[in-house]
């Protein structure tokens, strides 16, 4: 099979079977690297680091990078659209079904359990970023980061209307100026 089509097919497959967010795509990329040798595991590690340090969903960033690496801009667009295609189809079907079942007693009961569970899941998923933002690799506390966190929490609490984008930009500037 033509490599370009095979590549897009692999990303459609990843989009269809990677359940639970961007990081769930990593095992599939790993498999592609072993099966087809499209990229090395070193490159995969770099890709993860870059995806985490650039804006956007991590899975999308990785798809774009692999596609660009293989076939330039055409590849980047192909892999990214391939990855999101199954989501669009599946979610559209579910959204349509939810419209019909939103008044169902059973669905409401299920969501009574799901809503608090999602908060637990979000907290668990954020622990990684909490720890890496406030601790060094040897688990000692990054004092300057803790001070910045207290400052940001104070600003956020005092000016409730402050936009998250402003807070993110401010923290990036402070990071560069004070060499965090």
């Amino acid at each position, binding site marked *: 099979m033509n490599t370009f089509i095979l590549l897009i097919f692999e990303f459609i497959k990843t989009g269809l*079977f990677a*359940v*639970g*967010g*961007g*990081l769930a795509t990593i095992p599939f990329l790993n498999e592609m690297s072993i099966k087809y040798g499209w990229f090395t595991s070193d490159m995969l590690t*770099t890709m993860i*680091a*870059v995806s*985490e*340090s*650039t*804006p*956007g*969903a991590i899975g999308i*960033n990785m798809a*774009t*990078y692999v596609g*660009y690496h293989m076939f330039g*801009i055409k590849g*980047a667009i192909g892999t*990214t659209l391939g*990855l*999101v295609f199954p989501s669009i189809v*599946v*979610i*559209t079907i579910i*959204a349509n079904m939810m419209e019909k079942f939103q008044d169902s007693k059973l669905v*409401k*009961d299920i*969501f*009574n*359990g799901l809503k*608090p*569970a*999602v*908060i637990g*899941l*979000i*907290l*668990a*998923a954020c622990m990684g*970023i909490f720890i890496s*933002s*406030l601790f060094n690799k040897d688990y000692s506390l990054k004092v300057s*980061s803790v001070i*910045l*966190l207290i400052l*940001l929490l104070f600003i*956020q609490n005092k000016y409730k209307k402050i936009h*998250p*984008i402003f807070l*993110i930009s401010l*923290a*990036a*500037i*402070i*990071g*560069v100026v004070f060499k*965090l």
Partner: protein
Amino acid sequence: MNLLLDLYLTWFKLGLFTFGGGYAMLPLIQREIIDNKKWATEEEVMNYYAIGQITPGIIAVNTATFIGYYKKGIIGGIIATLGVISPSLIIITLIADLINNFSELIIVQHALSGIKVAVTCLMLVAIKNLYKSNVKDKASLLIAISTFVLSYFTSISTTLLVVSAGVVGIVFTKLNLFRKDKS
């Protein structure tokens, strides 16, 4: 403004300022989608996140598709999704050639250290707000804590946790353990 263009631009903005994946997008969704545009309520967004956990694909894309679909049908879902993925496509393509050095650049590392602290701050506040509006009784608190502990400290799959929470929701409702005035 044309609704489709508005959907595209709003999700473009969310994609551009999200660092660290779909969950980190939550504070921005609260501000832009819930408060400013009023395209969804907090409760609806929580439902989309729950469904995003057990359906294939990336949470950010799934949430964009949901909100786009309810605003403007299938084409709305597609446009919102294209909006949220466009910044990644542009940025990664632009930096792809220098990508091997990018994350080692000292200035990038410093900026990123700051950004991570901001994301921590925003997520703490977002989780606090979600907690206040969704956990109003001991039964909900028990579900939230158990899910956190099982998700963080064990390797039980998220799909299994979400499905179990749904079953627990049915059982607890039957046993009248949730506060009545809830939703």
